[in-house]
Every structure is written in structure tokens, then in C-alpha cells.
């Protein structure tokens, strides 16, 4: 982009105007006026289009094929949701416009909240958090506010299992708590005895995801939530894995108090290369008064407005959350309905189990029992036999035209490959993916350290990137060819 630049070239054009043409110096006091304009690329629209179109040809995506990244739920993102989210009546609405001109939006947000409450088995929902981690932090602040409301300010710790996603401990810290890690047991589940041993009146709560990060359903879940409640703690549900249990079981029924959802996983909001997502938080009746506000609310006359809960912790977003992402999720929800959501869970779980079984002869399966929406296999044996690690398998899979699974996570499994096929991959695609993984295992060799060789670039030097930081074009090294 910067190399395409030529001084004075331009893509921009602005509408005809007949406003007075005050000069910059008439409009900006001298001490504030930029001495020179910001140096940006100067390119033609044609070159801009070619540049980015070419870049997209160097980018894998769900639309190009299977994306079995564990813990990420990379399912098909229906095109109809793209269209819904670009309707001018949704996309061109100012967030500070009074409710009298945003009734459609308020109804949408209100109905979406209701549906998410039903799916999770909770009482009330905030749609403000713009991603999962933001939802977690919101949840922890709710937990804090709730304890404070009980006059209980001595709790300093939040328990998390060792298999938890990194955002959990990080959010715990930002929520002002200390993270207390409990180990998983041999089944890959929370060790109930170990958990009981750490539970005391310093524990503010626990964060869990169920199915857990190994893709396993925590079957002691009722006992776990009861044990935490017993010591006065609250139980937080990380909803990143909700895809597995849609219409099957609900966090509320399991005894959870606070739930965040990743709409960019479970509800097919496209991931955008790393966002935007949406991380709504749902809570029990008891916690509802603490939710961030304002919330959409329906008046007795049927009109909608905003209402801030009585003891609200305050806002967690500049406006109303990632509204257009919420609109996409709502369109998806309408398309699927209750029946479609249940079907999602059924087929997501079927696909994952099929893969687990199919791969079992070629990879280690540390927890070889019915998994939920994803399965974790290990390349530990492969590594011992051939030197080929999980990361190499991942790179080889890129050569086969698939995206790689999640590797080296969860941390509790050596050489982990965490594979989440999702319900939108057909049996044929699953079979092709499995065949590729089997082929890779069977032909594993030291050559695989050099994979991938057929991708737009070869294996990338991550160490150099960190050691010799070049984070802007201005700090660039002299070109070394390619790209």
C-alpha cells in the first residue's frame, strides 16, 4: 500500500458543495493547526481495490473451507445475516437518537435478549459487552457488585480450572480478584475434591465452561455449582462452548448465576478476522438489578425505551454494544428458531464424535469418551515416534487446503490438537479432513518441520518478529522480496 503511493495521487472525491470555503487558518487557531498533513498512502481507487483484493487471496476463511479451530466455533455465516445487518434502517441509525425514532432497534434488542435468556435459562441479559472477554469482565464486576450488596467485601479469589481459556484468568485480574487455579482430574473434568478443598469464604466465585475446554461435559456440574453456592460464591459460565448444548441443557438449569455468550461463535456472527463479536451477559433474577444499563425496555403501551437497572454497575460500552453484530445474531436466531438451535447441537456433537472415533487409531485421544462439540487429540505419540509435533501437523493441514485446529491448547494436554468441526460441515468434508489428518500422521517425517510449502508464504519467523519489532511501515526493514 505504502509502496503504491505517489505524491498527489488520489482516490477520494467529495460531493459538490456550496458552503463558504473558509481556509484551514480561518477555522483552526494557529497553535492547533497541523504544520503538515498526516502522511497517508496516496493511491488510486483502482490500486486500492487491487491491493485489497489481492490481500484477500492470501487469506483463508470459512467461506473457503473447513475451519476446525477448537474453542472457536467457526461455522457457516449465513449471507442473509450480512444483508440484514446492512439494511439502512439498521445501519444508518445514530446511537444517541431518541427512542421515538429507534423503536425497531429497541424491539430487536429486547427480543434478542429474551431469546438469549431462554437459550441460557437465565432471567435477564445485557447486550453491551462487545466480545467474550468483555462479557467475562462484566460478569466479574456483577459478581463483585453482588457480594458488595450483601455487605460481603472479604472475598478476594475466583477459582478457575487449569484448562480455562486465557481470557478467564486475565478477566479475573481486571475484575480485581486473584485467580485460583484448580487442576483437572484424570477424566479431564474439574476435580470435585480438589475444588472443595479450596472453597472457603474468600472465594467470590468460580468460572467454568461446560462442555469444558477438552470438549467434555462436566457431569458433576450440579455438585460443583452447589459446592460453590454453599460457601457463598457465585458460579460463572463461559459460554464460548454453548454450541454443544443448545436446546439440550441450559446453564441456568445447571445452577449458574452469570453467563456470557459469544455470538460470534454460537450465533454465527462472522469473526471478521478477529472481531467484531458480541459477548452478551445473562444473569439470574437476583443479579438482574446489577446489570449494565441502559437496557431496552417495553412500556405498558407497547412502545420501547431505555431503562437502567436500579443498582446497575454502569455502562461497559460507549453505546449499546456491537449493535450490527447483534442484528446478525438475531437474523440467525430467526432463521434457526428453537428447532434449528437444537439441531445445531446434535450435529455439532455428532460431527465431533465421528472425528474423535475416526482419528483414534492415528492420534492419541487422552480422554476417549463421548465428547461434545469438539474433540482434543494429542500428537504426543506422533512426536515421540517421528519428531513431528502438533504444530507441524497443523502446518501440514494448511497445505491440504484446510485450516488448522487449535494447537498447544488446552495447556493440560501435551501436543494438543483441538478440533471443532461445527455442524455446518458435511460428512464428506469431515471425511476429507480426517483423511488428511490420517495421511499426515501416516507420512509424518522431519520434512514436516518445513511445512507449509504451498501457502502464500512459508513458515513465518515469529521469533524475529518479536526480537526486531517492526509494527509500522515507518519502522520497516529493507524489503526482502515477496509480498
Amino acid at each position, binding site marked *: 500500500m505504502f509502496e503504491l503511493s505517489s505524491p498527489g495521487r488520489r482516490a477520494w472525491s467529495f460531493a459538490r458543495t456550496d458552503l463558504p470555503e473558509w481556509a484551514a487558518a480561518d477555522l483552526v487557531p494557529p497553535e492547533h493547526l497541523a504544520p503538515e498533513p498526516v502522511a497517508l498512502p496516496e493511491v488510486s481507487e483502482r490500486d486500492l481495490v487491487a491491493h485489497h483484493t489481492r490481500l484477500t487471496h492470501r487469506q483463508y476463511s470459512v467461506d473457503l473451507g473447513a475451519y476446525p479451530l477448537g474453542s472457536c466455533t467457526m*461455522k457457516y455465516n449465513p449471507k442473509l445475516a450480512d444483508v440484514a445487518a446492512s439494511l439502512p434502517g439498521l445501519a444508518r441509525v445514530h446511537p444517541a437518537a431518541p427512542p421515538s425514532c429507534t423503536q425497531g432497534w429497541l424491539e430487536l434488542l429486547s427480543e434478542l435478549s429474551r431469546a438469549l435468556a431462554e437459550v441460557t435459562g437465565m432471567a435477564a441479559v445485557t447486550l453491551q459487552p462487545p466480545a467474550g472477554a468483555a462479557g467475562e469482565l462484566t460478569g466479574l464486576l456483577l459478581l463483585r457488585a453482588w457480594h458488595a450488596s450483601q455487605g460481603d467485601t472479604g472475598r478476594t479469589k475466583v477459582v478457575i480450572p487449569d484448562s480455562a481459556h486465557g481470557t478467564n484468568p486475565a478477566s479475573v485480574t481486571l475484575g480485581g480478584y486473584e485467580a485460583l487455579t484448580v487442576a483437572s482430574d484424570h477424566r479431564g473434568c474439574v476435580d470435585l475434591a480438589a475444588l472443595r478443598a479450596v472453597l472457603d469464604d474468600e472465594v467470590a466465585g468460580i468460572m467454568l465452561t461446560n462442555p469444558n475446554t477438552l470438549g467434555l461435559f462436566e457431569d458433576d456440574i450440579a455438585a460443583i455449582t452447589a459446592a460453590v453456592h454453599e460457601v457463598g460464591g457465585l458460579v460463572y459460565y463461559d459460554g464460548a462452548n454453548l454450541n454443544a448444548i443448545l436446546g439440550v441443557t441450559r446453564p441456568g438449569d445447571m445452577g449458574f448465576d452469570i453467563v456470557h455468550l459469544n455470538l460470534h461463535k454460537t450465533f454465527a456472527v462472522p469473526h471478521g478476522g478477529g472481531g467484531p463479536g458480541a459477548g452478551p451477559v445473562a444473569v439470574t433474577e437476583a443479579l438482574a438489578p446489577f446489570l449494565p444499563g441502559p437496557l431496552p425496555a417495553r412500556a405498558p403501551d407497547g412502545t420501547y425505551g431505555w431503562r437502567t437497572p436500579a443498582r446497575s454497575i454502569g455502562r461497559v460500552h460507549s453505546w449499546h454494544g456491537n449493535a450490527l453484530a447483534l442484528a446478525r445474531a438475531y437474523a440467525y436466531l430467526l432463521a434457526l428458531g428453537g428447532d434449528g438451535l437444537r439441531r445445531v447441537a446434535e450435529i455439532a456433537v455428532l460431527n465431533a464424535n465421528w472425528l474423535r472415533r475416526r482419528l483414534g487409531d492415528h492420534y492419541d485421544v487422552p480422554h476417549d469418551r463421548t465428547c461434545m462439540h469438539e474433540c482434543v487429540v494429542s500428537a504426543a505419540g506422533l512426536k515421540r515416534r517421528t519428531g513431528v509435533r502438533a504444530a507441524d501437523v497443523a502446518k501440514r493441514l494448511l497445505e491440504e487446503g484446510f485450516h488448522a485446529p487449535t494447537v498447544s491448547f488446552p495447556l493440560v494436554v501435551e501436543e494438543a490438537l483441538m478440533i471443532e468441526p461445527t455442524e455446518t460441515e458435511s460428512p464428506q468434508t469431515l471425511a476429507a479432513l480426517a483423511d488428511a489428518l490420517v495421511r499426515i500422521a501416516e507420512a509424518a517425517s522431519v520434512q514436516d518441520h518445513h511445512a507449509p510449502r504451498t501457502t502464500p508464504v512459508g513458515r513465518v519467523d515469529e521469533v524475529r518478529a518479536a526480537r526486531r519489532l517492526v509494527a509500522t511501515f515507518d519502522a520497516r526493514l529493507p524489503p526482502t522480496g515477496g509480498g
Partner: protein
Amino acid sequence: MAGYVPHTDAEVESMLGFLGLSSVDELFSVVPAALRLAGRPDPSGRRRFLDLPDGSAEPDVLAEMERLAGANLACAGPGVGAGHGLVCFAGGGAYDHEVPEAVRALASRSEYVTAYTPYQPEVAQGVLQALFEYQTMVARLAGLAVANASLYDGASACVEAANLATAVTGRPGVWLSLGVHPHWRATMATLAAGSGVELVDVPLDDGVTAWPQVAPDGVSPDPPGALVVAYPNHLGCLEDLGLARRVADTTGALLVVALDPVAAGLLRPPGEWGADVVVGEGQPLGTPLSFGGPYLGLFTCRLEHVRRLPGRLVGETVDTEGRRAYVSTLRTREQDIRRERASSNVCTNQTLIAVACGVQLAWLGTSGLRELALRCARATRYTRESLLALDGVEPLVGAPTLREFALRLPADPAVVVERMLEDGFLAGIALDADGGAGNGPGLLVAATERRTRSQIDAYVAAMDKVIR
């Protein structure tokens, strides 16, 4: 349909057979029976597990979405007069700018839209390079060395800036100008409950921040870790960043500036004023109003703070063949590696919006960004002068403004906004005492490059009628 699931019944059967199961329900036998939704048979005999309507076909979904969209009053384009949506004079951190079709088309390429976070750089050079370019352009806007690959929105960027500054200085106090957007301040207050950041509100005097007097030796009983100030601020006023820098120097605090990226087309970059961290709301560059989201948190800082940078950072490197390549770097800051000691908990950010912003900035280029800022400033000046010519309309504060301004009206601003809707105008944002940063109720007005003279004239005429 049904969840976009491809599986036919026969295929499900055969997969179950492979697993030695006879029904899909058996897959869920690991879920304790007491927790399993039992389902109620519906009139047709099918079990319903959730109290939600059945799924709908695409045309029905779109019809419902269109109904909802139709129940809003959307903002109209520049060529459109009253009657076809609202002509927008509201700003307050969310501005009605043009998004060129090329930008829209490129940012909606499905490879950008449906990719995950670039964990496998070999197949993610598209997103990575687009982010690298974005980082470069945003850093230049701010006049600082590094930018991250985005945060959620202006508010979250401000929160992270305060967290960084308090961590760097080891001081929890943050002097927060009341000129910072009230929603951002509210968000900072919410999150401070967990992070322990101690916010001290600093009032405005006639529109600009009146920093506390500091002893010349800087020894104050409770020195802040950061000063946070907006440029222009929420009332549209241009803050004295030189003064802010001096106060920061005297107290040993970092200076955090919340920059409007369009105004940046005309303003001296905060980095040149000595800002340590510059944040901002990126919406005005490439993103429609979107009812407030997804927006874009801009975050830039001095190079020395890069290891505390929140969120993702793309760096340039090479591949095995020595070809230029991009990759997420300094990942040890991030939560998936450093976990509870991470500099931030951000994981998913706003990549696609950042990509759109990068495309938009390149579409504008050096001269276009300046031209955009100039056009906004002109439209704003013309609107302001025209409104001030009305009886009883006065500036709310006296400091110079650029792309937005606040007025005192001879009527209740909230009522004025409501009544102006009937004439097809979103007249601005009604400021209460808080939003007006203590200056009592007022109306906050912004006119972007999309506002034509005839729209402004009609707006002023309607206002004249309404405030009488």
C-alpha cells in the same frame, strides 16, 4: 435450513452407526438426565426443547428484519431532503460520514469477513497485512510510534490507556477531564471498580479542562498516574494540550489524549504535543453510524510502552524463504499466554472495522483526510454561525471548536430534539448538566461533510420555528 446443517437423515444414521449409537439423543447421555431439557411435544408430535418459535426461511427472516429496520428513522444521505429519513446533526462521538463504495466493497470481501483471528499466519497474510497498514496509518494520525490492531471502541481504548498508565507509573490515580465523552467516563468508572484505577474528575472552565493547580515541584499529596483529556473534547472544544503536557510533566503522569480521527486531519498530532498514549473512536473513518456498534477503539502509544500494549499487534517479519510476512507479535503480553498477568484481557477485537478504517484512510490519503476535516469544519462553522444568528441561541462555552459545538437554547434541548424529528432532522444531542460537563443543558451539534448548504439552511429554519 434447520441450522444450515447439511446432514441428511441417512447420513446421520450412518455416522451414528460408525459410533455404535442408535440415536442422536444418546450422544447427550453424558449430560445428567436431570439437567437435560425434556422437551414438550408440539401439536405435530415433534418435541420442542426451547420456548422459541421454529426457524424461518430466508424471505421471512428478511421481511421481519426489514420490518424492524422500517421502524427506525435512519439518517438520510446528502442528496436527500426531509421526508426520506433524518438529516443528521448529531455527533457526540458517532458521526454521519460518507463511506465510499470501494471501502464498503473491500471491507465486505468474504475472506476478511469470515476469517478467524490470524493464528496461522501462513494463511492469514491478508488480514495481517491489512492490520499492519492500519497500525501504521493510525500511529501516524496520532503522531506516535505504535498502534495496536484495535480495541472495542473509544471507551474501551480509554480504559486500557488508564490501565497502562497506572501500571507504568505504579499510581492508581487518573485525572479525568470532564471533557471526555460521558459514556466513556461512565465505562471507565464501571471498570475501575475491578481494576482499582482511581478516577478524579477534572472540571471544565468555559469549555476546556481546568487542571488542578500543582506545586511547581510536582510534589502533590496524591500524584496521578495519568491525565486523560479529549481533543477536541465532548463539547467540541480544542483543549490546550501544551498545558496538559506541562501538568503531566510536573506530576510525573502520562498524558492520554482521546483524539477524534477526522479532526486529526487539521490538528497538530497529539504525539507532537507530547502525548504518551493516544486513543480514539475510529467509527468516523469507514464505519456507518450502526446504532453505536461495532465501532473501533484506536490505541497508540510511545514505543517504550509497547510491552504493555493491550490487544493484538501485527509485526513484519520474513518466512522461511526470506519473503516479507506478517504475524501477530509480542504475543507474550496477551491473555492466552500470560493469563492472569496479561496486560489486558482483550482477545477478539474489532479487526474487520480496523480493516475498513485502514481502507478508508488509504482512500482518503494525505490530502483527502485534510479535505474531509476541512469540509466538516466548514459545514460546522456555517451551521454554528447560522444558529447563533437565531434569537436566544448562545454558545454554551467560549472555547474554540472545530467539528462540533454546544449551544444554549431558549427551550429544553430534549424537547427541541423531539420536535425537530417531525421536520426530519436529528437536531443534535441534548446535553443534560452532566453531558454538558456541568454547564447545564445544551444542544450538541455536528455537521459533517455530508451536510449541504440547503440542508443546513432548512435545519436552521426549522430550529427557528421550534425554539420560539
